[in-house]
């Protein structure tokens, strides 16, 4: 299907920011394929409003992704998650990274969508509580509660010190 020239600006934007957006989506979904689905769906929604988007579309895309993540972007029948191999052969320890990814994604699965979104926004995106509240469309107090409970759940799964490496070695 040919792509309209009017999306050239979006293509250039994604060249610059697509990787970062997908990484966030992978954590929100969580999972590689689910993350791609989430970002693709966000892009489809963006395209519907593309002629009305002024300025940088990143905030719009992020808001869609977070809203969808919180609203229950879940595949009812999940495909078996294929843990994506590192794109570069320069990664020294593929097995370790895959194990770590498995631990992290499994841990994130334990959280509710809102907790996961709050944790990703606060600890991955480094957003402030106010920025997270804006992205999730909720109050700051709700962000605090969701993030705290999310961390609590992760601690329960990983351990008080959140040492993913040790948990990986223990074979979570």
């Amino acid at each position, binding site marked *: *299907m040919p792509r*309209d020239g009017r999306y050239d600006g979006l293509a250039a934007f994604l060249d610059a920011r697509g990787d970062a957006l997908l990484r966030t989506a992978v954590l929100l979904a969580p999972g590689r394929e689910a993350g*791609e689905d989430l970002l693709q*769906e966000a892009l489809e929604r963006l395209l519907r409003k593309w002629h009305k988007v002024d300025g940088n579309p990143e905030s719009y895309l992020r808001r869609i992704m977070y809203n969808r993540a919180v*609203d229950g972007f*879940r*595949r009812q029948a999940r495909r078996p998650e294929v843990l994506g191999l590192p794109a570069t052969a320069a990664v020294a320890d593929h097995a370790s990274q895959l194990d770590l990814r498995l631990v992290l*994604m499994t841990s994130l699965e334990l959280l509710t969508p809102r907790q996961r979104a709050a944790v990703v926004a606060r600890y991955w995106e*480094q957003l402030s509580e106010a920025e997270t509240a804006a992205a999730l469309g909720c109050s700051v107090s709700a962000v605090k509660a969701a993030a705290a409970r999310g961390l609590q759940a992760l601690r329960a799964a990983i351990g008080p010190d959140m040492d993913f490496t040790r948990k990986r070695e223990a074979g979570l």
Partner: protein
Amino acid sequence: MTSYHADRGDGDAGTALQAAMSACVSDIRMPASLLDNAVSRDRTRKTRIRLASAAGVVVAVAAMATVIAVIAAVPGRPSGHVASPRPDAGPRVQSAAYVLDQAATAQVNSYRMISVEHGDGLIYTDVATQQQRIVSALRASSGQPYFQITTAIHGGVYAETDIEYQHHVYSTFTTSSLDAGTQVTLSSFLPLQGNSDPHVAFQQALKAGTIRVVGHQSLNGRDTILIRVNAANKPGAKLHWPPDWIWIDASTYLVVQTKHFIPDLPPAPGGKISWRAIVNQVTWLPPTPENLAQLTVTPPAGFTKIPYSELAQKYLGPLS
């Protein structure tokens, strides 16, 4: 920006979590096909709902019925929009509500038909299944269409076949990645599946007050009713979209022509935007075996199958 709560130990935990997240996703790269897939699905969605949307908006005209003028269809009435009297019709008055009610019924009845849009190429659509064949107006050096695209949804799987005749290549694309989503499903693209009671849509459009029935108009000798659909422009928006225009047959109330505008971008120096009119004629076919056969096409023998992304970017992309 982040203010970890050291008293709860979140600082260390947050740092460890951030490090783990970074290690896990740092190698992830966005596939080049993601935007193409999104564009493809968006185009398909637009194509699939175009007629349904047009009819749905037409339905909305009814909403204006009690507010706006009565549509003149009185034979002999001294108006530029007065239609020629139909032999079997006595003097009568059609309200916008009546027109839209008939259009709603026609939309429901079109569920069993095949629409053919004549615009920049041809688009055959089986309204019931939304199976489509798109035939480009552009011609290859052989005289064949430059490309043809067929799409279909069967068993929850969207399948697309693209054939490019200039370079004798074709590609297929299937996806079901969103099929099982709790909110977004492929079936939502089908007409009459969602908020699709046209009569209800009339009422919603009445409240919105965005459309009006202009009146009868002769279109190539055919008695039609012209409907204006105002764009939902937001205050302060840079682009102020012109209205869409829809002609429905005055007897069958099926859509026979649509006209909408797209901006010529980038704007001219000074920021003034000009608009290009896109006009599509629509004809309707019964779902006979011969007509249903129009919805499919098979790649000719000798054509080479190539990856979808290559076809989209290398061969069809430059045509955009």
